[in-house]
């Protein structure tokens, strides 16, 4: 993956503001996008750059907001970062573009209560069937 060209292409589909890019240790490039830009960005990356390997999705409740990190990999890491409100967090699913996102989205939804709109659903993945305590990775129960 040529990171410079990838970032240029991402910038070209979101021309309104300069792309927020940072670098983490171990060669990870991180791009922060608004929630509605995640899907178009992933479509561009997977169709034009053949960036098909989604390593996982990390969700975190920082206390003020819900952070989602989509970790992609193709020789080096590229993470797409977005934030959602703590009240009723929702974002369109990626499963149509990256079918491998199925379990990752379900896990984030169980652990943090994020709704992935259009996710095919299915039985619970990790929590017991009779779990009624709210998402366990939330800072305080909803």
């Amino acid at each position, binding site marked *: 993956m040529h990171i410079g060209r990838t970032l240029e292409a991402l910038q070209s589909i979101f021309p309104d503001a300069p792309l927020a890019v940072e670098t*983490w*240790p*171990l*060669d*990870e490039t*991180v791009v922060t996008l608004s929630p509605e830009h995640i899907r178009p960005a992933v479509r561009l990356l997977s169709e034009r750059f053949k960036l*098909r*390997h*989604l*390593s*996982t999705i*990390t969700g*975190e409740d*920082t206390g003020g907001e819900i952070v989602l*990190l989509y*970790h992609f*990999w193709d*020789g*080096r*890491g590229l*993470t797409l970062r977005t934030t959602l409100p703590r009240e009723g967090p929702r974002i369109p699913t990626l499963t149509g573009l*990256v*079918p*491998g*996102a*199925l*379990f*990752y989205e379900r896990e984030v939804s169980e*652990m943090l209560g994020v709704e992935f709109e259009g996710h095919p659903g299915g*039985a*619970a*993945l*990790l*929590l*017991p069937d009779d779990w009624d305590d709210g998402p*366990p*990775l939330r800072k305080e129960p909803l």
Partner: protein
Amino acid sequence: MTRLTIPSGPQHPALKEPLSFQLTVEGERVVESALRIGYVHRGIERILQERTYLQNVHIVERVCGICSHAHTTAYCQAIEALLGLTVPPRGVAVRVLLCELERIHSHILWLGVLAEHIGFTTIFMYTWRDREIVLDIMEELSGGRVAHAVNVIGGVRVDVGPQQVAGILARLDELEAEIENLAQLFQHEQTFQVRTRGVGHLPREEVWRLCVVGPVARASGVDVDLRRDAPYASYGQLDFRVITAKGGDVWSRTMVRTLEIAESLRLCRQILRDLPEGPLKVRAPRRVPAGQVVSRIEAPRGELVYYVRSDGSDRPARVKVRTPTLTTLITLKQQLQGVNIADVPAVLSGVDLCIACADR
């Protein structure tokens, strides 16, 4: 034809770990399957947030009972990156040596499980006998057969003495001879071929679509291995081949893993013959500066990912663990489609499931 749904698990006489699946069959053919994990979910990601960086080394070692050293390697690599620490060369060498010994042990264990599931008990006995060779070496080095507690933040805590090297090399030769026999057997033994060829087929394109990693991906012709493609530790200076196969079935997965054992043996020899001098570790501070990191390594089952965010205190704000089994579980629905009931155990064991890993 009448459809019948057979529930199985989570407690099951054949599977060693709790996994529940429902198979809908028409006669002997599986037409639909549904899987459920989570029976050994321990909430490890939450536990990690509540303990110090130091204590967490012992927690992540217990995510998995087979690839425990892979977990501490990925975790320590993440924290060392946040601290800006460089592990001394001898520490890196011992760390990689254990990684490869563990890969050998994990792959041999898997060969035995598969052999047992297809009714080839003799091979199960032989492989698990040979696995003792590598378990003995790891026990001699670290004091533990499966939980080695070798990694610490900043390096490793055990050394390989000069008098130990010769003994280990001799035992690795012994093991290599056995592995060559096994490779020959899997290549030519007819019963084995009948039970594994074409079973649990996963085409290359599906591997990409479902983001599958490790030996399962390589057995479907996807040439990916983090040790070569994004070298960490000392893999950039070591000489090894990445094994791939085209078949995408249980037989190809067997060949990939068997030949990977041979490559890992070569890697162990290279490390033991070229052990650098010097210290094993550097001192690591208790507090970690604020920052975020994604650490990836090639565990025995494929890409293992640790994400760590530090807020500057002595405990991580968030640790995310993605184990390779979570990527291969997703393929089972497709692999089970249309197989004979008798082949279900071969398909399930073929992907090398580690349920404790997937549940965390």
